[in-house]
């Protein structure tokens, strides 16, 4: 599944329009403890988190993730979004809860991380 397809699936809005939407999603994950995510993040991952500060983008980029998804309509600071755009990292916001987003991803066959 591509990031653009995921966007439709979870009724999301892109906070980084046109950035990284062709990227293929290989696995999904949700966690808000950044140091936990650093230990478990993976390439091609779609990561659902309520955290929005700059370090979220750093973690996503360093782990070579496919996108960051903010649940429940959460917005991200401009500073973090600027960094996401410059690093080519897609950031989506969905009205759904983290639970619902992960449920939809799983139902589409997106696996947990390897």
């Amino acid at each position, binding site marked *: 599944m591509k990031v653009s397809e995921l966007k439709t699936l979870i009724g999301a809005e892109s906070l980084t329009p046109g950035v990284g939407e062709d990227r293929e999603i290989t696995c999904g994950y949700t966690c808000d403890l950044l140091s936990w995510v*650093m230990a478990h993040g993976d390439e091609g991952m779609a990561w659902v988190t309520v955290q929005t500060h*700059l370090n979220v983008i750093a973690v996503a980029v360093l782990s070579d993730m496919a996108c960051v998804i903010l649940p429940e309509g959460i917005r991200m600071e401009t500073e973090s979004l600027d960094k996401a755009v410059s690093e080519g990292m897609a950031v989506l916001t969905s009205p759904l809860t983290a639970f619902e987003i992960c449920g939809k991803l799983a139902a589409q066959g997106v696996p947990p991380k390897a």
Partner: protein
Amino acid sequence: MDALIQNTYPVKAADYTSAGRASADIKRRLKQLGVSGDVLRRVAVASYEVELNLVIHSEGGELELAVFPDRVQLVSSDVGPGIPDLSLAMKEGWSTANDEARSLGFGAGMGLPNMKRNADDFAIESEVGKGTVITMGFRLA
């Protein structure tokens, strides 16, 4: 053997805004050298962890990158405060991070174990009142 790249990045204590800059530059430089895939990801994760450790726990320090034809070496050294019990610090889930770090989602006690897991070679030396030196090596196959 001469290093292909050698660079030192100063890291300030408690500077969460700049945290990750050194790791991002290290990743970019390695990518330019043609390092990719698993090794690049492991170096990126370990360098970010060690950079964050300097920000969260140290009184300031530096991260040194050296790239040789067959390996990447990262050395983190700080000016204190030093770790009183290294075996506790290496335990997953053990953390002494303050509230500010925890409010940003850090301090899960995963940093040092995660560095060890990602590096091919890992060594840590620490003296209370003096500082901590972490040396990590990554083989370039």
